């Protein structure tokens, strides 16, 4: 006897066995699911033994007067009346509807039902046939899943809220008032603004008519970038107390970042502003950061400053100080690479585009920033690919 022969013999025996024992009535009555037939109005006209056992009711108690709705919890009954019944009448079929039946002893039974509507030849509804499946285990599992999903959604909301809060502590929303200087700043997060970015700026006083402005960009996003951003800002504040030149402060900042366990690097601008009558003398140093834009009345925009090393990664970094005198009407614009690297498909916004926009923009800090911000946002159809930090200042006219 071959293996196949054994299978075939067993199958034949099982088939004959089923023929004897699984007569249609027996199969209907003791099927491993509940069966119901109701009128289109929902009155039960037929049920099988499995269903009667589940709901603990006899044929007499069910057939004729009782509707399926009568056997449901109130919530399921409302759902059935407002969703399932109409659905059946509209598409002749509903599947996998979760309902709760009430047994005779008052306990609930969670079930899934599939139902189909039979129509007579003239198209009028004739009967509803319903298959009922015990879904106790599945439903309790689904409830756990649902609770987990709700917890996850709540956590996500909380994380986003935390990111926003953190963001607000990183970016001073309104720069301080500097006597004798018009100053405006703006920050726009990338995308939907739910993640903490690495752009930052800071404006603080170190002496009478002696101020420091810094603006920079820590690579990456998220909490680790935020941590480094905080470190950089506070280190700059601490180092500036020593009255060193901007290049010396940047060199010291580079040492701090080199020793820090993070592998994140940073670009930054550091400017020392000393008031001299109506003018301001600016000493600036760059660390891997795009050059600021200088605008003089009647002139075209020009880039100023000597490029320096990126902070935190270069073995022998170099930083140079450059001096610029800001007279009445001059404006200096600082920005992060979210401006020049704004994308439109494969194209970048770019430095030339930015300079062109700046040349046509109002020559005062607030108007200039607004014009540039609008143009960069429009270029990217309103959704920023990267954070943007902008800061512009100059002696009042």
């Amino acid at each position, binding site marked *: 006897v071959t293996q196949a022969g054994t299978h075939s013999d067993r199958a034949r025996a099982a088939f004959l066995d089923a023929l004897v024992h699984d007569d249609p009535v027996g199969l209907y009555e003791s099927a491993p699911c509940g069966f119901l037939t109701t009128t289109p109005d929902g009155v039960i006209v037929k049920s099988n033994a499995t269903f009667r056992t589940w709901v603990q009711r006899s044929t007499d108690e069910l057939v004729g007067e009782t509707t399926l709705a009568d056997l449901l919890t*109130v919530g399921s009954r409302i759902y059935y009346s407002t*969703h399932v019944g109409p*659905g059946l009448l*509209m598409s002749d079929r509903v*599947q996998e509807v979760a309902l709760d039946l009430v047994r005779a002893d008052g306990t609930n039974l969670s079930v899934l039902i599939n139902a189909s509507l039979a129509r007579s030849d003239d198209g009028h509804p004739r009967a509803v046939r319903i298959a009922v499946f015990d879904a106790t285990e599945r439903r309790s599992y689904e409830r756990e899943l649902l609770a987990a999903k709700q917890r996850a959604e709540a956590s996500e909301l909380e994380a986003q809220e935390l990111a926003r809060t953190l963001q607000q502590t990183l970016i001073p929303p309104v720069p301080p008032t500097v006597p004798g200087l018009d100053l405006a700043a703006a920050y726009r997060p990338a995308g939907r603004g739910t993640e903490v970015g690495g752009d930052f700026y800071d404006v603080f006083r170190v002496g009478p008519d002696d101020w420091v402005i810094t603006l920079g960009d820590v690579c990456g996003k998220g909490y680790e970038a935020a941590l480094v951003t905080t470190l950089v800002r506070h280190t700059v504040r601490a180092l500036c107390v020593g009255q060193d030149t901007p290049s010396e402060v940047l060199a010291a900042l580079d040492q701090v970042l080199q020793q820090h366990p993070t592998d994140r690097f940073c670009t930054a601008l550091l400017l020392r502003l000393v008031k001299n009558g109506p003018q301001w003398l600016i000493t600036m140093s760059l660390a891997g950061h795009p050059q600021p834009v200088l605008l003089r009345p009647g002139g075209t925009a020009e880039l100023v400053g000597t490029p320096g090393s990126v902070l935190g990664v270069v073995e022998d970094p170099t930083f140079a100080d450059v001096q610029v005198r800001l007279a009445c009407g001059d404006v200096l614009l600082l920005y992060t690479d979210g401006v020049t690297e704004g994308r439109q498909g494969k194209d970048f916004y770019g430095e030339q585009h930015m300079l062109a926009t700046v040349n046509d923009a109002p020559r005062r800090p607030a108007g200039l920033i607004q014009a540039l911000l609008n143009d960069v946002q429009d270029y990217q159809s309103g959704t920023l690919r990267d954070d943007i930090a902008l800061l512009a200042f100059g002696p009042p006219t």
Partner: protein
Amino acid sequence: MSVAGPSDAQPLVFVHGFGCDHHMWRYVAPTFQSDHRVVTFDLVGAGGSDPAAWNPARYVSLEAYAEDILTVIHELELNDVVLVGHSVSAMSSLLATIAEPARFAALVLIGPSPRYIDDEGYRGGFSPSDIDDLLASLDSNYLGWSATMAPIIMGNPERPALGAELTETFCRMNPAVARQFARVTFLTDCREALSAVTVPTLVVQCREDVIAPEAVGQYVTDAVPGARMTLLDAVGHCPQLSAPEATAAAIREFLDSNLVTSTFR
């Protein structure tokens, strides 16, 4: 939104209730298209409405839905409107006619209930705890919504086009929207408003309706000045689906009665 029928005929605006969308009217609305301008639309949050239009802070009461009904009527520049509201939208429709009675010729309320929760001297049929039970039921049935967008209602293999269309929108609702709509629906109390109705009103009531029982329909009929009721020999909460001919006939009879004036005739 769907607009059908002659543009110079009297407008008949159908508003669906909690649970589904404008497809609810598919067996009734077309029977009026020969001599009425028939308008059906999906409420914000339901069916094929723009998900961006949903604002949880706005849709906290039926007044917002009533305003939306008026917006539709203003947008289409409809006058002498017969407004047909089903289920909870029977009450939003009623509020709309009170807000701007001059626009309306008549009001038809199908399965209305001014308050679903029992109160002293009033039987709406439900207790406050039933709402939690309903919300749990909604949660169970919208479980896979966000993951798969799987609709509960499957298409009919014999009528694939119909099936595909229904599968697309019918009864599909963002679970958060469904929860809030369920809350607004079942916590509503419009009993005070009933007496303020000034347009001719018909209540269409099913013989047996677990959501809005006959006694509630009678309460509405008694409270709305001059209202009359047509009792349908139908079971369930949606006679426009379970007894479409009788529902259409009841509306038709009301429209043809001398109660409803029309500048279109």
